[in-house]
Structures are given as C-alpha cells and as structure tokens.
C-alpha cells in the first residue's frame, strides 16, 4: 500500500503537505475574509528571519520559526488597532526584519563550520522533499492542531469578522478571538514555510481561500472548500514535481494553486458576461 505512494521522501512530503495545506486553507479563508492577507505575508518575512536566527545560534530552525511567527503575530495584535496592524508599520518594520534575516544568514554561513550553504534558499523556497519521517510527523501533528483550533473558533470568529460590534454585544470574546486567530496564523505560517518556503507562503494562504470565496457564498462551505482545494493543489504539486524532473515542489504547488484561481476567475468573468450582456465591470 505504502509502495503505491512512492519512495519515503514522497510519503513524508504527502503526510506533512496534506496537513499543512488543510491548515493553510482554513486559516487563509479567514485571512481573506478579514482582509488580513498582508499579515500572513508579513509573518512569512518573520519566519525567514526566525529560522535563520535559530540556525545562527545553533538551534533547530523550527524553534526559531515558531517562536518568531507566533511571537510577532501576538505583538502585531497588541500594537495594531483591534489586532489589525497599520500598513506602513508592517511595510517598514518587516523590511527591517527581513534585513535582519540576511544578517543572520551571513552570520550562520560564516561562523558555523557545519553550516549548510543552501540554508537561505531552503528557508526562502521550502524543502518539503527533504523532510525526515520524524520531521514530517511533527509538522503533520502541529498542522492538525492548527486545523482543530480553527474549527473550534470558526463560527464565533466568522461572527466577529463579519459583525464585530454585534458579536461583542452578544458576548463573543472578540479581542481574545483576534489574538487566538493570530497565534494560529503564526503557527500556520511557520508550518507552511517548511513546505513551500517563506517567500511563497502567501500563495498557499491566499489562492485556495480566494478561489473558494469565488465559488460559493456559503461561509462554512467556502471554508471546507478552501481547505479541500489547498490539499488537492498540494497533492497535484507534489505529484507533478515527483513525475517531472527539474520541477521544484514549491513551484509546482503554487503553480497549481495559481492556475486554479485564474481558471475560476476567468470562468466567473465569462459567466458574468453571458449573464448580463450590458455589463461593463468584469471582476
């Protein structure tokens, strides 16, 4: 049975990738709904710096990943109004943090005798085919925990995202939910960085969610669809990358995600044009 899934490295990638994609799909749906996609992008910069800082100090890169993304996510919630940081603050602070990442990269490659010269590239673009069985197991467990956390807070978070004041009057802990969500975003970003890399995390968070929101207006169906699409795109990407030589998995996964989103956009535009002949705006 396991032989059908190919060599061990592919099995590990499938195990971790499936769970990570599901988590990214669930988290991404709320990022798109709350117009916080930029938060996910900013946290991916933090992920890069966190991973390289950990390497530079001789720690496991994952320690730095999770500590940095979750810590900064909570900090953003505290600094920003209602857990939504200001655009200019994000822009300038996170460019600086990315610069720190470059500093740690130099520190790591020049001072550690055992340094992996490709560490920077690995963190930026992911290395899902390089996961050991134990790493894949931990990644999958954390991603499943993120999924469960998202499912637990999904309904009140939807209420708070759509209608904050009414939700607060109803007794929904709006601020606490915002923090909880940011922690899950941080953990999910750290996870997804291992799969597709810090630079490409945004695609996994935004594309399936955006596609799902264009396909249905039912919130919980869209949430399930977002997770399902992310998983399917992960499988398609891993399969393509395995079958076709010289195709990095990160590229294949995000190509699949972008292609599906583009197809849904075009299909929607064509349907709109047919439906209303006099229509001007095609969104």
């Amino acid at each position: 049975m396991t032989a059908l899934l190919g060599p061990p490295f592919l099995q590990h990638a499938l195990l971790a990738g499936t769970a990570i994609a599901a988590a990214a799909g669930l988290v991404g749906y709320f990022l798109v709904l709350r117009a916080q996609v930029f938060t996910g992008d900013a946290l991916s910069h933090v992920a890069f710096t966190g991973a390289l800082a950990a390497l530079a100090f001789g720690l496991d890169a994952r320690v730095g990943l999770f500590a940095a993304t979750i810590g900064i996510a909570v900090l953003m919630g505290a600094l920003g109004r209602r857990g939504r940081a200001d655009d200019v603050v994000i822009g300038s602070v996170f460019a600086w943090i990315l610069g720190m990442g470059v500093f740690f990269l130099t520190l790591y490659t020049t001072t550690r005798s055992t340094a992996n010269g490709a560490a920077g590239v690995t963190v930026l673009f992911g290395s899902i085919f390089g996961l050991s069985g134990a790493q894949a197991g931990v990644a999958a467990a954390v991603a499943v925990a993120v999924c469960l956390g998202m499912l637990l807070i999904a309904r009140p978070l939807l209420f708070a995202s759509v209608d904050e004041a009414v939700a607060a009057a109803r007794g929904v802990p709006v601020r606490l939910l915002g923090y909880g969500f940011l922690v899950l975003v941080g953990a999910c970003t750290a996870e997804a960085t291992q799969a597709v890399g810090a630079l490409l995390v945004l695609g996994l968070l935004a594309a399936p969610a955006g596609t799902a929101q264009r396909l249905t207006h039912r919130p919980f169906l869209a949430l399930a669809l977002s997770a399902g699409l992310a998983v399917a795109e992960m499988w398609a990407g891993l399969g393509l990358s395995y079958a076709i030589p010289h195709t990095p998995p990160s590229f294949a996964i995000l190509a699949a995600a972008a292609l599906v989103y583009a197809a849904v956009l075009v299909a929607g535009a064509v349907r709109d044009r047919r439906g209303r002949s006099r229509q001007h705006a095609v969104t």
Partner: protein
Amino acid sequence: MTPLTRLDDAVQPSAPPAWPSTGDPVVCLRGAAARVGGRTLWRDVDLSVAAGEFVAVLGPNGVGKSTLVKTILGLQPAAAGEVRVLGGRPGRANHRIGYLPQRRGFDATLRIRGVDVVRLGLDGDRWGIPLPGSARFARRRRAAEARVAEVIDLVGATGYAHRPIGQLSGGEQQRLLIAQALVRRPALLLLDEPLDSLDLPNQGAVAALLGHVAHAEGVSVMIVAHDVNPLLAYLDGVVYLAHGAAVTGTPDEVINGPALSRLYGSPVEVLCTSDGRLVVVGAPEPPAVHADRHADRPSGARDGSR
C-alpha cells in the same frame, strides 16, 4: 412611555414618576447619569419603556444618545441613578436584546449571503462549526433554518437574502441586520441610527417595519435617530437629550416649542411644514431634528459613542 419633563436642576419634579401600572417596564431609568472621559453627558434622566412600545432617542450630536444605548446594554456603567433592563441589572439579559450598532454598511467585496449573516445572529456565538448530516442535529438545524426564513420574511428580505450581502443596497442590508437582531425573539430591540445613510423611501419603509415589529410582534423598540420625521407616524414616545438633560413623553409633548425651550434654556421653535414634517429652529446647537449630521457637526463636539 411616561410623560415626565425634566426641567432645570432647580426645578425637581416633586411627585414621584407615574410608572406604567401593568407589569415591569422593559427599560427603566431613574435619575440616571452618564459620564464619559470625565465629562457628564446627561444626568437625572428618567425613562420607562413598556413592552411593545416604540421609542425614539433624539438630540443633537455629542449629547450621549449612543451612550444611552450602551448604558442599557451594560457596556457603559451608569454614573448615578438606577438602570433596570428586563427586570435586572443592565448586561444581565443581553441575550434577550437585539442590538444594531451604528455602522457604515458591509464592504462590497464581502462574499457572504444575507441569510448567513442573519443566521449568525441565532448561533454565531457558539463554538465549533455547524456539522452536516447526523439525524440528531437535523431537526435542530431545520428549526433554525425555519426561524431564519421566518424572520427574513418578516422584514421583507426574502427576495435577496441569498445574494452576497456586500452587493445589496443600504436599505436591503439594514433590513437583513434588523432580521439578524430579531432572530432570537428578543424582548427589546436597540438600534443606533439605523436610518442614517438610507434614502427617504427606505427611511420610511424601515420606520414602518420597526413600528410593525413593536406593535404587532410586541417587541419594545428603542431607536437612536437624527431625524424624527420618518418615525413620527409610528412612535409611542420620545426621549429628547440636550444640554445634559432629557425630556421624555409622547412626540407631541416633547417636540414642541415650550418643552424644547425649557430643555435648551433658550427660545426654540418647532415648525410644522405643509406635509407634516417637523423642523426645530433656534436651538443653540445645530438643529437636532432634521439635520445632516456631518455638514454641521460643531468642532470639538463628538458623538458620545466615540
């Protein structure tokens, strides 16, 4: 509505207020005061709203109308006096209150159906996600869906409730939000400027809907409004806040020259146009009834809610 006029600090009403004889009032304030940021917004406010009454809270900008709503919700403690809501302290019975805060409307890109927004009013505060299947949950789900459909029909939104709410007009969104506030069969409905940003026909239609909710469904409705005119035909009572005090009574008792002159402490006239609309003239602050809230907002004066 208890006709009770608060005049000046020197002129305290000697007789105790005549509360409605039948049953407990839904909302009851006695000598209540509100203080925000060290500034007393209003004090010695007496008010009583019975079941099924439709009451408007009027007054100029920054006088504390939204703060009155928040005091009733228990979000803003009263600085003095007694406030009782649904027979208890404010905030205790919020599950029996439908609340519609002041808002700008939904973002045009929000891709969620109106019916889902209404449904959130029913069970949006429950953890987890609604699970499909499972016969045990099926009956409860059908009951919830029936209640949502019923309340959407009540507000006349059935025709567009399944479209994304961001693409609906302001009036359509407002009806769906009223449905959301009503879906749990509240005893009290609190609305903060729901007519703001609606065009005149929609203002009239929403006012008629709220009158129906109060008088036919027996829900007490309190509405913060800037312009009393769309509401006049349906109102049972008016609370007019100005100069740190309030006049309460029927619309005729409150919105007239002598009553408002006493409240403002300077001559105020209420004119009636040929089509029955009321215009307040001569109030020291910008005319509170029938005024645009943004064009003439006095510098420094801010709405109590912010």
